[in-house]
């Protein structure tokens, strides 16, 4: 599973993407965040305020309760500031 990071989340983690293989019990975005935080202190710190972390699964915007099993790309990013 490819993970993408954008904006200040990308900067704080010092990477734009990574490949991960979450265990089978990781079913939702919220669980994926918990799992990524458990193995990486920088990630845990950067995602402490969960309300500031938005997510997309395979280029579709989703909530933290969305399923991630079978996804090929999951993206995490701060609130958007376009326009």
């Amino acid at each position, binding site marked *: 599973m490819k993970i993408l990071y954008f904006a200040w989340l990308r900067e704080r983690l010092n990477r734009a993407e990574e490949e991960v293989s979450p265990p089978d019990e990781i079913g939702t975005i919220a669980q994926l965040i918990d799992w990524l935080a458990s193995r990486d202190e920088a990630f845990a710190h950067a995602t402490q305020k969960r309300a500031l972390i938005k997510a*997309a699964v395979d*280029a579709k915007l989703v909530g933290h309760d969305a399923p991630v099993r079978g996804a090929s790309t999951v993206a995490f990013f701060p609130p*958007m500031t*376009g*326009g």
Partner: protein
Amino acid sequence: MAVRVTTEAFDPGAELNAFLEASNGAGAAATFTGVVRSDPQDPISALTLECYPELAVNQLTAIVEQARHRFSLLAATIIHRYGTLAPGEPIVQVMTLSPHRQAAFEGAEFLMDYLKTDAPFWKQETGPQGTSWVQAKSEDDKAKARWE
């Protein structure tokens, strides 16, 4: 193409003329053009927009479809740039076409309000104090909420 997400500069007037060209006897076109702002009291030298292009195209296409239905628009277009821009350069343009001005205006406002909060762009300003991320504004959430 109703949605264009691009690093290339665009010409607001040429885009408006191309949009009107295809108007086919509709009466009312509303356009919003957003350009890189630089407050003389607090000037910036550059604005950099980061983008997740694949998600941006999906989100903007969905917003355009929603606007077309909701306001019975005959056409709607969003052009959004990303990359590093200088003050005065156009960032975004939305255009709507309708037989009546009210729907054209409302459609364009709706597109802008949604785009501000729901399109994956992130702005970073470079000025005398260095570079910093632009914070999401609660006004933008409120502006979007009025359509719900």
